[in-house]
């Protein structure tokens, strides 16, 4: 296969708005949207923010944007006010909440430990043998790698890992998706990679996402959607590759895949109840540069991994996150990833769920992909980058507005499912922001603001003791985290002392700090921005590795 326009800048304004033409004749519009699922043909299907709507819909969407911030701020301010005006009630609430936290920790630790067991088992399986019972030679694996200005060695490590997979390389199509905004560097490095790896795979397509497409939020979603359409028109259609025979894996550029990833994916695809109505979620382990990262970066990175591991054991609560795989057919039916918002990795799942009237799944692979922990050259730089990265992730609260908005429109989805998902999402975004602050800061408020009558009581004195003891109990969950994290780090490089293992085990005492600084505060920041209509753009996480050798 040949890529004839690997670096051409085609005017894809049509495909940029594919599925959602706002102008033109009715016939033309029908032709453009014919491939979309019926619900996905709505003009508001890929709405990104309230300002893209009008009338009642706009007001309702705006209300939904305001709701999470108001709920979180209301809770936090409510706890402070209750501490002042109803300190006894606040104290009972805090004790109940601390207890709930202990049990929640136990509940999540149970899931985490189980998934760790399953992850290790999956890593020990020869998935190639497992998949032998299926006829899958017709399947193509497409790997889309959007990038901005990440270092050469990061891109190279990712492509190197692709060359080492236990899968027929001639069934793999690589799409290296550069950004015009990144200047000459992007095109230059993409071409360089194509020259180096082009002959290894079935096809190596380089796309350059134009920087001036109206209506887009500059970011991964817009780039990936552009690359997907380029793939369709430049590779799949010309070579007659069927969309339902094409599995697309969209990976962050620092994603190093494990050798059996595609075999594992194929097995799950072939055994899925409805493979074309499913996304496949690996476990992102942020450990490529774990030995260069500091304790804060390691704890935050591993916490993100653990959260995904927990979710793997309760797939009904899952949405896709970061690197994941999905059939091209499914993507094409909803017009690819949204180009007008930040958290496109999760949004694509909600697009698919809603367009398929609720009949869509996320299938956990319990198989890892390795990514970079957020590391900058300085500690302060690392802290700032982690904060910004998590603010972007927690800006995923924009999905709450999208989901609830469309749940009121698409009545084909069962009411029960709509209610459950709405409550799960609301609780998730609310607890993300409020729980750490309530536990570690506001829990002490009645003691300071409770007034003289409250201060005289045994309850006032016992409140910090009871809460402290419950939190210590909850911290035992961190022991599990500590043990599991040690098994997930790459082999110790030469020159790194064994003492690092001790530090890596003890670093988990930082969790109360990281929960507030890198989870609650960026989450509150993101929700406040959405509440005030100060919409966020896509912030590209800088990739930095001291050691150019990435683990695999």
């Amino acid at each position, binding site marked *: 296969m040949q890529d004839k326009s690997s670096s051409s800048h085609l005017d894809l304004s049509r495909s940029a708005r594919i599925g959602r033409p706002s102008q033109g004749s009715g016939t033309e519009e029908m032709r453009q949207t014919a491939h979309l699922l019926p619900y996905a043909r709505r003009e508001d299907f890929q709405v990104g923010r309230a300002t893209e709507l009008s009338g009642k819909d706009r007001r309702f969407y705006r209300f939904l944007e305001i709701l999470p911030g108001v709920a979180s701020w209301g809770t936090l301010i409510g706890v402070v006010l209750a501490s002042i005006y109803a300190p006894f009630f606040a104290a*009972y609430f805090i*004790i109940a909440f601390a*207890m709930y936290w202990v049990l929640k920790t136990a509940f999540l630790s149970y899931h985490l430990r189980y998934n760790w067991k399953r992850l290790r088992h999956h890593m020990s399986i020869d998935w190639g*043998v497992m998949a032998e019972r299926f006829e899958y030679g017709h399947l193509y694996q497409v790997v889309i790698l959007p990038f901005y200005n990440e270092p050469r060695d990061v891109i190279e490590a990712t492509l190197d890992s692709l060359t080492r997979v236990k899968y027929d390389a001639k069934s793999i199509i690589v799409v290296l998706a550069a950004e015009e905004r990144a200047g000459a560097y992007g095109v230059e490095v993409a071409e360089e990679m194509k020259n180096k790896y082009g002959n290894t795979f079935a096809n190596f397509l380089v796309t350059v996402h134009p920087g001036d497409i109206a209506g887009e939020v500059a970011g991964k979603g817009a780039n990936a959607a552009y690359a997907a359409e380029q793939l369709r028109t430049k590779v799949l259609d010309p070579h007659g590759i069927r969309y339902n025979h094409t599995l697309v894996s969209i990976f962050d550029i620092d994603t190093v895949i494990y050798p059996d990833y595609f075999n594992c994916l194929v097995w799950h695809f072939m055994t899925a109840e409805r493979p074309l109505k499913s996304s496949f979620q690996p476990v992102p382990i942020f450990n490529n540069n774990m030995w260069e990262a500091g304790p804060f970066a390691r704890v935050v990175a591993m916490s993100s991994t653990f959260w995904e591991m927990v979710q793997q*054991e309760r797939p009904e609560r899952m949405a896709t996150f970061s690197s994941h795989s999905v059939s091209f057919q499914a993507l094409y039916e909803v017009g690819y990833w949204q180009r007008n918002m930040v958290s496109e990795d999760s949004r694509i799942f909600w697009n698919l769920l809603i367009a398929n009237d609720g009949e869509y799944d996320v299938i956990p692979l*319990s198989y890892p992909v390795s990514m970079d922990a957020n590391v900058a050259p300085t500690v302060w730089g690392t802290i700032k980058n982690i904060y910004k990265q998590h603010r972007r992730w927690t800006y995923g609260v924009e999905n709450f507005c999208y989901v609830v908005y469309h749940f009121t429109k698409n009545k084909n989805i069962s009411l029960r499912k709509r209610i459950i998902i709405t409550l799960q999402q609301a609780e998730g975004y609310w607890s993300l922001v409020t729980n750490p602050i309530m536990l570690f800061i506001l829990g002490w408020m009645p003691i300071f603001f409770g007034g*003289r009558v409250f201060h005289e*009581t045994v309850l006032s*004195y016992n*409140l910090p003791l009871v809460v402290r003891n419950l939190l210590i109990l909850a911290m035992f969950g961190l022991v599990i985290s500590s043990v599991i994290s040690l098994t997930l780090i790459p082999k110790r490089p030469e020159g790194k002392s064994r003492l690092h293992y001790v530090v890596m085990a003890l670093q988990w005492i930082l969790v109360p700090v990281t929960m507030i600084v890198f989870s609650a505060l960026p989450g509150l920041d993101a929700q406040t921005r959405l509440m005030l209509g100060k919409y966020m753009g896509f912030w590209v996480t800088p990739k930095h590795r001291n050691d150019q050798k990435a683990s695999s």
Partner: protein
Amino acid sequence: MTGEPDVQPLSKRHRSVFFYALFGLFILTLPLFILYAIGYRFSFDGSTTFFSTGGIYIAADRTGAEIYIDNELVRETRTFRRAFYAQSIEPGTHRVHVQKPNHHTWVKELPVYPHLVTEAQAFNMPLVPQVRVISPWRTRTGETVLSATSSLSASTTNDFVIATSTATSTLLLDTEYVSLTALFATSTATSSASLYERVSSVLSTGSAGTSTATSTIAEATTTKEFQGVRLYEEAGVVYARFVGSRADMPYYYCAEDYELLGTSTVPLLSPPIAQSASVVDAETEDLLLHPVQQVEDDTACDPTIMINTAGQIARTFDFYPNSTDFVLVALEDGIYVIEIDDRGWQNKQPLVMGENLDVRVEGGNVYVSDGTLLYAVQLET
């Protein structure tokens, strides 16, 4: 190879069972945690009932002190653990004492009410106070030069030399002494001498004894105010009055009367009340909004406490540095620290003993004058 991984995803059934088990645990244990936090305790003596308890919070001012409740050692204070909160205390009157070797012992009998915590601030002054002598002159090497003998019962912390002549040409004037002399002069109504005259007087005095003998007793007339507490004198008696926000008022200003242990063999307050679980439930509902033992309406009380000087006239008085709980009072036979808290009685401990002493507090330090020399009293030991 069976075609399926051996480890299957966690089944919904397992997850549900675990979830409901934890939920049940939450429902069952939460009331127990709340009852515990309020001050209820479970009786294991066979009656299997809950009973009400209170607490005592004692703050000590020194490390290495021992806190006793009802003659039982409960805490030895350390640098970051100078206070102790005792919970599960039966309602009634309890004797608390705080002691430290070579220090005066603080003793108090305190009332404990159900579901409430009784607070008290203890203090332990050293038996032999340590002072730094400040004289008008220093040698060029910085040593204090004494030309008078001290009348204080204290040990000194600084080196000094005894002046063998009245010649001062080889000595340096101690600027600290000069400034402190001015401090003592500002509110000493009986002295009209200039600084030069006072310094000269000290230099020409042979001993402290001659100086103190000629001193006159001056009544305190100053009013002091610190963090909402006002100290004032009326007819030779010193009073402490809380003038700040009632919300910040220490409990002892409007404390209820209670019977001391020495006057009754039975605690005045109710003994631990054995209650059936159903009674506790009814009370618990009430406790959601307010404590069992309501604090008295203190707006009706007069938050004024007399400082007990045992009949002696206070020459001067001031707050003990950085404290609104203790008062420094210069009495006829020495400088005393007296607590304002008059529950039961007021503990009174000598800071330094000596006749006709005067005291000033400046910059968190306590300075004493015997009319001849000045002394900086070392407060932390």
